[in-house]
């Protein structure tokens, strides 16, 4: 059964490993042609959530759809996604060009079109001079670039990127950010997991913060920062530190605690323009418990 509402949709998506809950009832609605910034501290469950959305891991409970297809339908999911894991899935023994041609053929791209696309991407990422060297001789950044091209080569509708700028020099990182921005111009959807908050701040239309398996807050970067503008100069970093702090102590002195937004004096009420853009998921989760 397909659904035609969102590029990515998840309803009560849960993953438990034994008694440990990695992702707890994740609800997502990602519009087509947007960048969704997926934030969270180490061990929050981001990778597990991405693995469920890319069909690599079965959810324990709940369901998710990519481009209207349930993630349980792996054949359909594969066709519509591109995935760059944290460690680029490249083979050291192949050259960069061979790697891309291999995955292009596996994706069933017509030969001429595949060659044109590969040449274009190699040129874009300054890799043409090294394309015929083995990947084992590549730097971390070059491997990352090849991994990213591989994820984009078949022009997928939805792209999952796990730390795509990791290991890249500033110029290459800028190229990646530009590419991500262009993808959304072409109505592709990008699900972006990263620790670099400035990247999310620049690119993301919507930001979700995962903490201990719970989506504790979600909204546009502007809406999230607006909610905690009790003092001047609040950034997404402050929001992140605030909502991922343990209940009680506040990580940043300038922002209120995890219950921000529920307080009409400070949270969403402070900027009426974004009042409807954001949801404080932590409260919901606490009620659920």
């Amino acid at each position, binding site marked *: 059964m397909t659904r035609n509402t969102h590029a990515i949709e998840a309803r009560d998506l849960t993953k438990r*490993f*034994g008694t*440990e809950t990695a992702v707890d009832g994740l609800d997502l609605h990602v519009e087509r042609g947007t960048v969704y910034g997926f934030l969270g501290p180490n061990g929050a469950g981001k990778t597990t959530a991405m693995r469920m959305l*890319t*069909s*690599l*891991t*079965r959810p324990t409970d709940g369901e998710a759809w990519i481009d209207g297809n349930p993630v349980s339908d*792996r*054949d359909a999911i*594969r066709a519509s*996604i*591109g*995935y760059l*894991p944290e460690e680029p*899935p*490249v*083979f050291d*023994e*192949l050259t960069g060009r061979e790697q891309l041609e*291999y*995955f292009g*053929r*596996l*994706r*069933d791209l017509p030969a001429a079109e595949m060659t044109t696309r590969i040449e274009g991407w190699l040129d874009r990422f300054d890799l043409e001079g090294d394309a015929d060297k*083995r990947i084992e001789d590549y730097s971390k950044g070059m491997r990352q670039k090849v991994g990213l091209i*591989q994820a984009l080569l078949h022009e997928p509708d939805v792209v999952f990127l796990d730390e795509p700028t990791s290991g890249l020099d500033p110029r290459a990182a800028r190229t990646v950010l530009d590419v991500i921005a262009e993808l959304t111009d072409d109505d592709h959807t990008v699900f972006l997991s990263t620790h670099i908050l400035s990247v999310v701040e620049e690119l993301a239309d919507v930001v979700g913060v995962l903490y201990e398996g719970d989506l504790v807050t979600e909204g546009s970067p502007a809406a999230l920062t607006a909610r905690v503008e009790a003092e001047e100069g609040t950034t997404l970093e402050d929001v992140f530190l605030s909502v991922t702090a343990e209940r009680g102590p506040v990580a940043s002195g300038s922002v209120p605690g995890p219950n921000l937004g529920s307080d009409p004096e400070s949270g969403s009420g402070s900027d009426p323009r974004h009042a409807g853009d954001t949801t404080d998921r932590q409260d919901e989760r606490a009620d659920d418990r």
Partner: protein
Amino acid sequence: MTRGTRPRLVARIELRRRWRTIKGNTTQLLAIAFVAVMLLPFSLAGVLGAYLAGGFVAGSETEPLIDWARMAFVYGWIFVVGFGGYRAYAVALRPDNLDGLLTTVSHRDVIGGLILTELALWSAFFLTIGSAAAVAFAAGAGSVLTIPALLLALCLVLVTGLPAGFLLALGVRNAGVRSRLLSRLRTLFLVFLGVGYFALISTNAFASVLEPIYRVLAPTPIDWFGDLAAVGLGIGASPFRAIGAVGFSIAFVVAAVASLYRLAEWLWYADGVHVTHEVERSADGASRFGGLSRVLSRPVFGVVAVDWKRARRSPISLSFALYPLIVLAGPIVTAVQTGEVGTGLPLWILVCGTWVAGSLFALNVLGQEGAALPVTLLSEAPERSLVVGHVVSGALLIAPVTVAATVVAGLLSPHSAPAVASLGVSALVLSVGSGAIGTGIGVGFPRLEAVSVSRSTKAIVPSVFAFVIYSAAVLVVALPTVVAHSGVASHALASIVGVDRFVIGLVGTVVSAVIACFVGVGSMYVARDRVRGYRLG
């Protein structure tokens, strides 16, 4: 893209990657060339043997010949299943970048590609030799029909045997990722399996394991491959069983493929058991090791404690200790089989215990520090604590066991009590001294980076070169003891010199001890100087 194109593409790239890996590894390339050169005469002899066998069986309608053909193919099938399964478990079923592949193509394409890869590798060898042998055999037998029949039988053995091996490997891997117990004991289990395997080979007891498997398979259609191969030879092969072999193979492959798809899906999409490595903290770290902290200086004690902890939590890094154990397995199995402990067993235990003691921690003093090496080198006078600590940790662990095992085996053997005492002293001195001997060799040929000790595990282990030199050194040092305590040599020496055999044994012990002390102390000085002067590259 047709259904079979993607598995073929996966297989082609896998083969290319493996070839490039081998080509880039001179040691591996030389090893393969060496094996190929060694196998060439055997292969030629096999082809000649096939020709002679063909001449022998031609026209003979005696019953045993067809039985032998059937038996040969059943054992051949067991071989393919066994080694194919082992390769699948160890190599094929953990492909690199599995996530990248599974988000691009289906698990069916991946497992299909991996089986095709193995099939191509096996075929390259078996069908080349097999074709030559089939032609020679047919020429000898004077039966042209035998060539296609024999080749077809060989192909069917491969085509059914390899998937069967994959099925077994997938079964084991699936059990491993789902069972917490199996997951925890995997290393131990593999060690036992490896030692048992070599013990079976060294004691020629392999047949006793294979025979029950043969008895199970003999009444099954696997037995029919022999009839297919022997069609046209006139030795009583059943044409119905020959046709049945083909039909069975088709049915088997269809069923196997369906099962392989399912098992591969279960394996690669499994959550897997998660074994956490939480360690209960003691109030005082030193209390765990009793009074050791009072005997050793604090830095040396620190090295010993860390060595033991790391060994317990990551025993795979001690993989070099397996070689002495494998060598020792043969004499032990022989003693168990015969029910007698000869004069040789205590010597084997002494030598192998000594060999193990030095190879555990002392053979890579610098490399064993891993990422902590820069910090270690910046600490105050690290050379003494590192060198002495690694020697002590191996000696304290292995020397008591070696001495006890040598003495017990000696008392059970025909050795006299004084000779056993002499052996005990040798065991003590050598197993303590072997670590000291290893330190200098280890710093001369350090290995600083982690290497793959299995398909999925990397660890910093001593370099092969260091281990080989160390092994030779241990043998040289232990030689006087071994010669002086071995039955024939000690008897001959005692007769020539005109003294009691115990005196010869004692002299051997003293000579070994003196050499071990000199070489050990010299080696430790070299190690100390190298560590002190070591600069990071």
